[in-house]
């Protein structure tokens, strides 16, 4: 009997001790995983970024300082393959991303330690469910269309710079671009363009540029407007008319006698 009581006590004590200590250990694990991410991120940074942005993110003649750019900027630049840059130039183009999302998160964690900046938006903030497409379209035409074209096809800027096409961009990256203003794009902070508006714009862009989005007229010719349409009309439309005119007036086959 005594042995049983001791056993019960021992069990209760073990359970109680576990209950008391476990959350603390979990919290400890959390903060250590954060510092681990920063450690890992620092290593990745030293290899991939420091040659231009400086060993401490202070910037150099080849790259801007990263103080206060925030995790959202890192997630956008590395996630779309723009950073690390292939070569200096007017504009760093989008290319294949070679980092895993975990590595990007580690980099972002490290770069966030340089100074506070916008963090990566939560999935909820760019979820297209319940977004107002019409409002998004109106805001897009007010704020974005001047550079990115009315259908997000992009366009030219000065000295070799350009606004890229938004086709195939993920909702997260569209949202982050508005939040952080990559390269020469202006920033659209939440104070000037509230979160809901950004979500509407994101949903509109995704809707307008998706490869299966309806295009009632068909044959969009790049959706670039009257230039391509005119070229097509002059070459193929007039070409067909000339060919028909030639057929009508051509000498027809004569019988050989």
């Amino acid at each position, binding site marked *: 009997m005594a042995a049983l009581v001791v056993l019960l006590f021992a069990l209760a004590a073990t359970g109680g001790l576990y209950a008391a200590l476990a959350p603390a250990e979990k919290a400890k694990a959390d903060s250590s995983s954060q510092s681990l991410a920063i450690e890992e991120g620092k290593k990745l940074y030293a290899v991939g970024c420091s040659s231009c942005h400086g060993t401490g993110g202070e910037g150099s003649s080849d790259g801007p300082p990263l103080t206060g750019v925030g995790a959202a900027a890192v997630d956008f630049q590395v996630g779309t393959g723009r950073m690390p840059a292939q070569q200096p130039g007017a504009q760093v183009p989008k290319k294949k991303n070679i980092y895993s999302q975990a590595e990007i998160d580690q980099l972002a964690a490290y770069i966030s330690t340089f100074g506070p900046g916008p963090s990566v938006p939560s999935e909820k903030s760019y979820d297209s469910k319940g977004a107002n497409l019409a409002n998004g379209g109106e805001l897009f035409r007010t704020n974005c269309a001047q*550079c990115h074209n009315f259908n997000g096809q992009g366009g030219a800027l000065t000295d070799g710079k350009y606004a890229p096409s938004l086709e195939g961009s993920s909702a997260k990256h569209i949202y982050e671009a508005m939040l952080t203003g990559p390269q020469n794009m202006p920033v659209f902070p939440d*104070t*000037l363009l509230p979160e809901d508006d950004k979500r509407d714009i994101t949903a509109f862009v995704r809707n307008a540029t998706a490869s299966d989005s309806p295009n*009632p007229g068909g044959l969009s010719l790049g959706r670039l407007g009257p230039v391509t349409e005119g070229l097509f009309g002059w070459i193929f439309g007039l070409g067909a008319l000339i060919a028909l005119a030639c057929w009508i007036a051509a000498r027809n086959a004569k019988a050989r006698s």
Partner: protein
Amino acid sequence: MSSDDIKGGNLPDRPTGHSGEVEETGTPSFPDPGLPPHQPRRQDIDEDAAARSERAIAFMFTLSMLATIGFIASFVVIDRTTIVHIWPFGHVNALNFALGLTLGVALFTIGAGAVHWARTLMSGHEIPQERHPIAASPELRQQVLADFAEGAKDSVLGRRKLIRNTMFGALALVPLSGVVLLRDLGPLPEDKLRHTLWGKGKQLINQNTGLPIKPSDVTVGSLVFAVPEGLEEEDHDFLEQIAKAALMIVRLNPDDIKDKRERDWGYEGIVAFSKICTHVGCPISLYESQTHHVLCPCHQSTFDLADGARVIFGPAGHPLPQLRISVNEEGNLQALGDFDEPVGPSFWERG
């Protein structure tokens, strides 16, 4: 034909009359070569070929009938919101596509059938149609002139001077009604081109949110468009007013601003410029946040917003007008007055 023939006497003599006058000659100085000999087509001599042509034409006309029936059927059957994917057109509206295709086929095959009919089965003989002189015969001209003179005499215009004079008066006055309509081109703009809705104490309203803008809202590198307080999109003159009052607001590091007046007219690096290009008035807001350049999409005029919106490229003749701004008691951005020069393109009296 040898080369001698070309050089030889087949060419007419140089005309001796006045230049430009057609020489009247009884006999042409070189023979009319006439039409090439008629060659029969295969359909003219081979009844089987003709029957084949007939069938081909009938086939095209039948296809046209079927296409018309298809057009009506598409209109009745296809839902107007259905989207289908058709290579290479993409995700098109099924009804649009079906109507266009069937109507196109219906019209084209009628035309193609008619052309094929004319080319293969209608008479293939070449038919010359001689030109005739444009002028009427002298007798006819005499007759017309005589008729006119008789009509003038019958109308007694020469004797009844009152009729003649009032008729001339009426004919002279009628065009005035056209002239007076030109009044609708006016009135002259007076000083409308020199003033916008901006004025002292007008708050800058964010076009996205419809709320006043606080300086802390505008971060460095951001871009936002503002309308004057009190102007609503529902207003009947909204477009007329916004065409002049459209404003873009950017924030630069005050140290980056090279132009002293620009720094003074802004608020802690927040500067407000007219959004209307000074070349031909396109809305201009292709803002590059790193270079502080604004590019006009119409003719590539480029303005440096860090240097008083100076024109650094393109056909624009003036810097973008800047609006003087400050902060009111509520902490919102406000205008300190109207633009001090006319916005938009130059005009004759701009000065």
